[in-house]
């Protein structure tokens, strides 16, 4: 699908935890598949780089982004209000290989790696997969309701909070139950998921995060080493086979 750079409008921008927001913008016909992202900006020259944010959910008319405030870019995004203009470049990246995914699939997310798995779960369910979600939080829970309609089972953990299993979400995963595991979140978590899957010979797809500049594969600002050579997270990824990323997996 074609990549598109366009001006859009914010329909809502709602704070759902201390530092996590959900923004809904007009889609203007842009493509958006599971695991893809957009480059966003709501500034002219004040900041130099657009910010990569994964697609949380999409409807025919709307794109939803769930993001955490981590720096000056996301802080500016969080200040946007209904009716404000925003620039988007996307949909970017390869996305999860939906055509290769069948049967029973686990989606495992940690922190702000959780939101993009919601659209993924929905698209997998729509093509006949049975989806279980494993959602790992630090403390406050969010986005649970964005998984309930699409998942058979939902497992929740929090490291500090009162709800769900207290510990790491990777403790709960039994890869042998699944035809494939899709994961998104901190690299240390994805590495653990990759190891668990490798031990059971289950295919594991990881969504990588990286600082990037162009978002479309031109500047090579987000290249990472893989077993297949240097790969651009923005264009060749962000979805990679775990065995290409982690030696031990």
């Amino acid at each position, binding site marked *: 699908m074609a990549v598109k750079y366009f001006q859009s409008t914010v329909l809502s921008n709602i704070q759902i935890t201390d530092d996590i927001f959900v923004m809904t913008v007009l889609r203007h016909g842009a493509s958006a598949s599971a695991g893809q992202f957009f480059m966003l900006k709501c500034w002219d*020259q004040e900041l*130099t*780089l657009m910010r990569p944010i994964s697609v949380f959910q999409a409807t025919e008319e709307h794109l939803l982004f769930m993001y955490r405030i981590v720096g000056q870019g996301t802080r500016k995004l969080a200040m946007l209000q209904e009716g404000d203009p925003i620039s988007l*470049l996307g949909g970017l990246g390869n996305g999860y290989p939906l055509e290769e995914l069948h049967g029973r699939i686990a989606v495992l997310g940690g922190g702000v790696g959780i939101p993009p798995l919601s659209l993924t779960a929905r698209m997998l369910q729509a093509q006949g997969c049975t989806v279980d979600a494993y959602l790992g939080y630090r403390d406050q829970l969010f986005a649970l309701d964005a998984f309930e309609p699409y998942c058979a089972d939902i497992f929740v953990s929090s490291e500090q909070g009162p709800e769900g299993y207290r510990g790491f979400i990777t403790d709960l995963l039994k890869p042998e139950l699944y035809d494939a595991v899709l994961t998104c979140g901190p690299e240390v978590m994805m590495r653990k998921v990759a190891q668990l899957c490798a031990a059971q010979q289950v295919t594991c797809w990881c969504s990588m995060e990286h*600082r990037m500049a162009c978002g*479309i594969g*031109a500047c090579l*600002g987000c290249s990472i080493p893989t077993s297949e050579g240097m790969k651009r997270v923005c264009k060749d990824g962000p979805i990679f086979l775990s065995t290409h990323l982690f030696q031990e997996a």
Partner: protein
Amino acid sequence: MANLQTSVNGIPFKNPIIAASGTFGFGEEYHQLFDVSCLGGISSKGLTLKPKDGNLGIRVYETPSGMMNSVGLQNPGIEAFIEHYIPVMRQWDTVLIANMGGHSMDDYVTGASMLSEADIDMLELNISCPNVKSGGMAFGIKAEVAAEVVAAVRKVCHKPLIVKLSPNAENIVEMAKACEGAGADSLSLINTFQAMAIDIHRRKPIFNNVYAGLSGAAIRPIALRMVHSVAKAVKIPVIGLGGITSAEDALAFMMAGASAVQIGTVNFTTPDAGKIIVEELNTLCEQEHIESIQDIVGIL
């Protein structure tokens, strides 16, 4: 319509806006967003004789009014460029500039002779990349070292030879004169400033290479001053770059002495910046009663 045509070393440019090396790949990705034939030229990703993986770790980092990069010249190598990317770039009606870096005198000479035989319009010699150890910028600091590499490349290069200068040179005017004396046909300046950023929480440099190249609007006033000083000191054409983000900026660099300009970092801020700046330059020239853009080159 104002006349935006310019020329450098006898090569005609439909307008003076050139996509700067390292920010535009080989043009394909941006061609999805707009027809890159609207640009005066495209300078390719920096090429080296052999393919290069580039640097590990963080490669790009936002800074006040700019960014730092430490890509480390990741590129497919000159052979792959000639075989795969020149045919792609030749689909477009725009000046094709091959940008080339090197690690040794031999690399520069071998690479330049290969590219000189290939279907390119101009060769831009990068003696100024700050992100590669023992290469690139090592040649761009001392005028006498730069003159040596330019003279060697000149002997094998039959295409117009642009030498891209580093603002990290000991003395940029002396550097420019030395390159002119060694046979450069034109000069492009400036490349990025060597700079540093630190993650105070990890107590480590942001970049694995410790230092990285600073670009963007933050460097523009210094770039403009350097273009002005160099253009006054040499007889060969100068291509100006360094934080240009608008048609107004482009015009300022041309008034300071640049025959053409390159746009780099702004391609990241606004993915269709090239197209927009060309359009706005036309409007701006009309407003400013500039019939032909060549009339204002070096008026200051």
